[in-house]
């Protein structure tokens, strides 16, 4: 039974005091200041007057910025969808793997996730850039083909044109999928692992195929896990800064890049603050939707 705080006031304040103090001073207050600034206006170089204006939020609905918001949601959504499609079979295989293989497969999924994000992004740059591994391999194949064609006397293929794989939206989505795949696989695995396998076996015994069983039996039962995987993948993808910054081109900026620009280069803190709180609200909405979904699933049962 939990103890009422009044019965051990000394111990209670010693235990709760430090984390509460830290949370308020070094998290709530910084966030609160940003929130206040989002209702402020620039006065001079470093002065910000808190005028209670909503103009910063209104400015975010300017078509220029609205387009970036819509694009960010689109990119994050596409990333989440691809992660789900790629990750579901992986989670399924891990769930029904023998114990020893399970351990190794989980480790294999988690290891890249523990590797530094910057290093993983850098590794992708090396793969995708014009002189990268993909283009070099293609050039080698092309030249080989060119030689064969030359021998046959059909004519030359012409010089190799490297593919533009980096600094575009394709690279951003690829990078986000690369980085966020473990976020999807692990919650899916923990949902599938709790599943009652006799239901699946019953469905298979009664003549349903594997695909039908997956769609009709497994997917609905694992829906809370799928929902949490989707949210856990979508939220960081939506707020990602590094991937669009390093892999994207001039038109693949996402919300976080715009926020960074307001604070570091444009020096328009009130607008940046408003953008960053809009991103916070979008995050909360995603979490609330997931919570509602998982509650609705639980009630009828």
């Amino acid at each position, binding site marked *: 039974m*939990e103890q*009422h705080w009044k019965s*051990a006031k000394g111990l*209670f304040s010693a*235990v*709760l005091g430090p*984390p509460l103090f*830290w*949370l308020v001073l*070094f*998290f709530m207050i*910084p*966030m609160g*200041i940003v929130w206040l600034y989002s209702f402020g206006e620039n006065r001079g170089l470093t002065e910000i007057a808190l005028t209670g204006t909503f103009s910063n939020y209104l400015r975010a609905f300017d078509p220029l910025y609205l387009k970036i918001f819509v694009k960010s949601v689109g990119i994050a959504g596409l990333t989440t969808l691809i992660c789900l499609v*790629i990750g579901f079979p992986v989670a*399924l*295989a891990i769930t029904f793997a023998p*114990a020893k*293989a399970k*351990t190794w*497969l989980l*480790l*294999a999924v*988690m*290891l890249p996730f523990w*590797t*530094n*994000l*910057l*290093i*993983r992004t*850098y*590794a992708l*740059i090396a*793969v995708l*850039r014009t002189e990268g*591994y993909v283009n070099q391999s293609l050039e080698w194949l092309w030249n080989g083909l060119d030689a064969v064609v030359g021998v046959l006397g059909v004519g030359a293929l012409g010089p190799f044109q490297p593919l533009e794989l980096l600094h575009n939206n394709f690279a951003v989505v690829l990078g986000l999928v690369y980085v966020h795949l473990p*976020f999807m696989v*692990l*919650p899916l*695995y923990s949902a599938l692992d709790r599943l009652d396998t006799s239901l*699946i076996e019953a469905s298979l015994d009664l003549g349903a195929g594997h695909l039908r069983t997956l769609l009709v039996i497994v997917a609905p039962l694992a829906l809370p896990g799928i929902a949490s995987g989707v949210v856990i993948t979508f*939220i*960081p993808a*939506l*707020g990602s*800064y*590094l991937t669009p910054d*390093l892999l994207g081109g001039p038109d693949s900026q996402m919300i*976080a890049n715009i*926020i*960074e620009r307001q*604070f570091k280069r444009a020096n328009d*803190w009130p607008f940046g603050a408003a953008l*960053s*709180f809009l*991103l*916070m609200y979008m*995050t909360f909405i995603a*979490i609330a939707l997931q919570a509602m979904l998982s509650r609705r699933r639980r009630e009828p049962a």
Partner: protein
Amino acid sequence: MAKRPAPGPLEYLRRWPLQLWLVGVGIFLYAPLVALMVFSFNDSRRNIVWQGFTLKYYEKALNNASLIEAFVNSLTIAAVSTFLSLILGALAALALWRFRFPGKTGFDGALALPIVAPEICLGVAMLVFFAKVLPWPQGLPWPMNLGAIIIAHVSFSFPFVAVVVRARMASFNRELEEAARDLGASEWRTLKDVILPHMTPSLVAGGFLAFTLSLDDFVITFFTSGPDTVTFPVKVYSMVRFSVTPEVNAASTILIVLTVVLTAIALKVQGDPASTAGGHAALDRPKDRP
């Protein structure tokens, strides 16, 4: 030798389409990293064709004073912020586990905020805080100059430790504590000899998590670091923006090997990852990387 029986209905791992899928995902996840590591030994600056084995880029990376400084900064920040996060996280978990108090739900919810808030939001909040409220003095001797970054890292790490420790404490049998008290142990003695030993595995897991989060963080550090407080990710970022060089490959390889070794140690101490994977998944910080 007898042929292996056909795969059972649920042995998905033994069906070839799924095996092919797993191999494909494995290549997708690992090929870029393996290529990066292999070419850190390649004796050629520009060409990706194998030109022979060399360690000269490791020599260059290890002689790059600013890279080493950034690396030492990162390890120092990670060590100190892990230490502080463990104390604060364990205390927060104890408070939530042990006591009923007004505002408990609020504290619980507020503790989850640093976990779910997008990194960029936390980053700009720290930038504003250290610019306006608590300007961190410039030119302090090392390691005091890293204070602002350490504070920022503790703020997003300790709630993770709290979640891990709290999950562990849920399995604690409160009767053990009552027995200890009945047998005459003081509050402090009970904490040290009964509760703490039960908590230890979660402290190891939480500490590992906090250390990796700190070592990995780029965005929040990017907003709190000054010109004389560069961390490894921030340094690599400026090198990567400039160009792709074998020195970065070499430095990255060192960090990857370090991560693998740390992971192996953590797993040895903690046991089977299958038993903890669910917990980790629920905890995954929405990170810009992840």
